[in-house]
């Protein structure tokens, strides 16, 4: 079956995290990422495979979304969608390993004096049908995403742009007019799902993009085949052909990889990775810093409206035990801040350690000695229920009774947004600025800690209006110090994202958190 019957109703393509309810597969699920930009220089180790070699066909197994899958890149939701979109299309920018925006279709960008106008120059690139990528294509794509009658995922990310006033200065130059100063505007260009499609494209049965591979065939929920695009602006891929295959069960992806039915398996469990790490049959690639792991405390509700209780909880957590137990050791400890290793991360703050004496003291001063709280968790992401159980035992040592409540995984994120007081939380990679704007401002749409402080909002606006990068870094540092001392996120770790490859595969980078530029970047992968 090829791609017949794509949705032509104005409906969002529904699909879920790429794992099955029935499965023992511990999927970490979709990383809801607003992207940021591209490949930070050449420090990343690659998996084996020797010198690059041209030719061959690579089969990659991902978890998928069934018969409702679409190749409309603006509807990307799952990892499988994102990987296919990346093969077929380009964004203006993409995120590097440190979440800084790297130019892609945009050759360069230049802000106006007040940071509310940005001039973006396109590089010379062509779509698969030979047409040149122009400013009009970009504006068409962005206006499609921002359509008020639609629910494209990147819509919220593009919100700062005034698309009515934005215009093409010439075929290769766009002037974006913004609703307010936005110093991190390049992050918007790298947003998850902000792909450039040819002007007037409405249907995606045979998608035409400017990406490294051109479309061959697509069977929703089963497979998608693409072939090398020789005129790709970033150099033609090594591979002749690439096939995305859908395998929802983690065990099936591993078996297919071990049995030689695929050469790349996305999203493996830590236990699988450990079992095959040194066996020599497959190569395990760990993408560090891919998913923040945290407990979210509602800062406006008792008992967490008292900052001393939040601080006590920070001190209760034994982070290494959580990483070892809930992530099977596949990750590193966190310091109650999002974005370890990313640009602007406040790495100079001291690592918080467990201190039960001080925790008890703080609880006593807050009048919360026999504290009882309910911790919401769910099977929605790998390690959530384990983390909840471990934290319950850790809290008991400080005299806090934690009751673990397991909720439905299908409605979990919506349930904890405004319900409960303490919950398991996770986030995929995104720039620290996006994390703040989506989750920590008074009007943020997914503010799970109910962190609403006008002074904090003002700092964010100040950062966005600050042209000088080091001055901006200073503002971000101030905001992070405040979060580290008083915030609602107890960030205990950062999980690795685990990919398995056959031994003959080269060029799979490990310094690429899931959904960054070099993640699933099959144009730079080769077969020996």
């Amino acid at each position, binding site marked *: 079956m090829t791609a017949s019957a794509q949705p032509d109703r104005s409906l969002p*393509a529904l699909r879920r995290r790429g794992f099955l*309810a029935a*499965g023992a597969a511990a999927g970490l699920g979709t990383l809801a990422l607003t992207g940021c930009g591209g490949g930070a220089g050449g420090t990343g180790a690659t998996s084996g495979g020797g010198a690059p070699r041209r030719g061959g066909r690579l089969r990659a197994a991902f978890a998928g979304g*069934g018969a*409702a899958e679409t190749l409309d890149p603006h509807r990307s939701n799952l990892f499988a969608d994102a990987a296919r979109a990346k093969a077929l299309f380009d964004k203006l920018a993409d995120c590097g390993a440190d979440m800084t925006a790297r130019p892609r279709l945009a050759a360069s960008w230049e802000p106006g004096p007040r940071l509310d106008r940005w001039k973006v120059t396109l590089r010379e690139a062509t779509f698969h049908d030979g047409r040149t990528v122009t400013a009009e294509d970009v504006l068409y794509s962005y206006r499609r995403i921002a359509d008020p009658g639609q629910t494209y995922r990147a819509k919220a990310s593009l919100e700062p742009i005034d698309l009515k006033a934005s215009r093409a200065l010439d075929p290769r130059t766009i002037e974006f007019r913004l609703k307010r100063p936005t110093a991190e505007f390049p992050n918007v260009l790298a947003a998850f799902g902000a792909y450039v499609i040819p002007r007037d494209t409405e249907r995606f049965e045979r998608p035409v993009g400017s990406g490294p591979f051109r479309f061959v065939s697509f069977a929703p929920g089963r497979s998608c085949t693409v072939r090398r695009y020789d005129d790709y602006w970033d150099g033609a891929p090594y591979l002749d052909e690439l096939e995305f295959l859908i395998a*929802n069960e983690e065990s099936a992806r591993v078996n297919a990889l071990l049995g030689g039915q695929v050469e790349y398996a996305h999203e493996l469990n830590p236990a699988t990775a450990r079992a095959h790490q040194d066996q020599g049959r497959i190569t395990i690639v760990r993408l560090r810093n891919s998913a923040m792991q945290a407990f979210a405390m509602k800062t406006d509700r008792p008992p967490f409206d008292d900052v001393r209780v939040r601080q006590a909880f920070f001190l209760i957590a034994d982070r290494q035990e959580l990483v070892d137990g809930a992530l099977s050791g596949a990750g590193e400890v966190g310091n109650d801040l999002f974005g370890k290793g990313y640009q602007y991360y406040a790495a100079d703050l001291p690592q918080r350690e467990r201190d039960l004496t001080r925790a008890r003291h703080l609880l006593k001063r807050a009048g919360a000695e026999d504290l009882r709280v309910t911790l919401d968790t769910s099977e929605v992401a790998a390690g959530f229920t384990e983390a909840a159980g471990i934290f319950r035992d850790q809290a008991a040592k400080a005299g806090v009774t934690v009751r673990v409540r397991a909720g439905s995984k299908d*409605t979990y*994120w919506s349930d904890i947004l405004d319900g409960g007081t303490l919950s398991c939380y996770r986030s995929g990679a995104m720039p620290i600025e996006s994390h703040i704007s989506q989750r920590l401002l008074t009007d943020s749409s997914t503010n799970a800690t109910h962190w609403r402080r006008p002074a904090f909002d003002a700092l964010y606006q100040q950062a966005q209006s600050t042209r000088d990068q080091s001055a901006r870094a200073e503002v971000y540092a101030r905001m992070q110090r405040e979060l580290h001392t008083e915030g609602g996120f107890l960030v205990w770790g950062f999980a690795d994202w685990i990919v398995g490859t056959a031994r003959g595969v080269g060029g799979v980078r490990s310094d690429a958190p899931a959904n960054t530029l070099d993640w699933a970047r099959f144009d730079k992968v080769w077969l020996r």
Partner: protein
Amino acid sequence: MIPAHSWLTRRLLLGLAQTAAVVLLVFALTEALPGDAAVALAADNPDPARIERIRAAMDLDRPASERFAEWVTGLLHGDLGTSLASGRPVADYLADGFGPTLLLAALTIALLVPVSVGLGVLAARRVGGAVDRLISSVTLGVYAVPEFAFGVLLVTVFALRLDWLPPTAVGYGTDLLAHPAVLVLPVLVLLSRPVCSISRLVRAGMIDALSAPYAEQARRYGVGGARVCFAHALPNAVTPAAQQLARTVDWLLCGVIVVEALFIIPGLGTVLMDAVAARDVPVVQGLAVVFGLLAVVLNLAADVVAHRLAPRAGVAA
């Protein structure tokens, strides 16, 4: 004794009532699922405004009674509705997944009967002998292993260690008959438990039948052992097994979900799992109604057959 046609009428009426109950239950249960397609789609980006927009776009904000009436009207016209996720007719989803699932089920049933009856008879021929003990302990052991675990075991041994068979059907599409090797392990997993339960029933029935007075009598008349076994004892021994077989067909539908997930076979089980995960309610409802009707029809057929063959069993209804 009740006249046959009156029994049949009552049994058919019961079937109709069961069908109506299935339709009502399917709607009520899917309605009771926590969350809806909009919440499921939003996943870990649950911006309330976005969820509302999705909900409105999908007509999820209309009252349940209205949607139920519309759905039942559609069903009566043979229209299963339209997928929320893709806008395609639900019937298309069923058609897509039907082939591989039917193939698996047909192969399983075709092998199930001879294998389980053969094993049961073999074990019963010399009760307590080495063959009997081997068959009995292996069938008991295998029966105790869940399909998922058994499947993983088979894949590990036959696909990954010995490299005799492909571990999954990934990349083969829907034309599985063209690659018979990929069917071996899935069918083995599907067979594992029913073979065990039915062969044990056949064995028990055979032991009873072989020690029954009529078998003794036949032997006293000098009828050969094989003839007593196959012509006299076996037909009586398989009656309980035949009813178990009808139940097995129901069970196969569940087994198929596990097996399809494990071996990446794009059948109805996969369609159902994807639809549940996406809260694609029309697809879930359509599949549930079809599965439910299938169960009603199969049980009806089994009852009719049993009623005809063994009226003394006093079939339910």
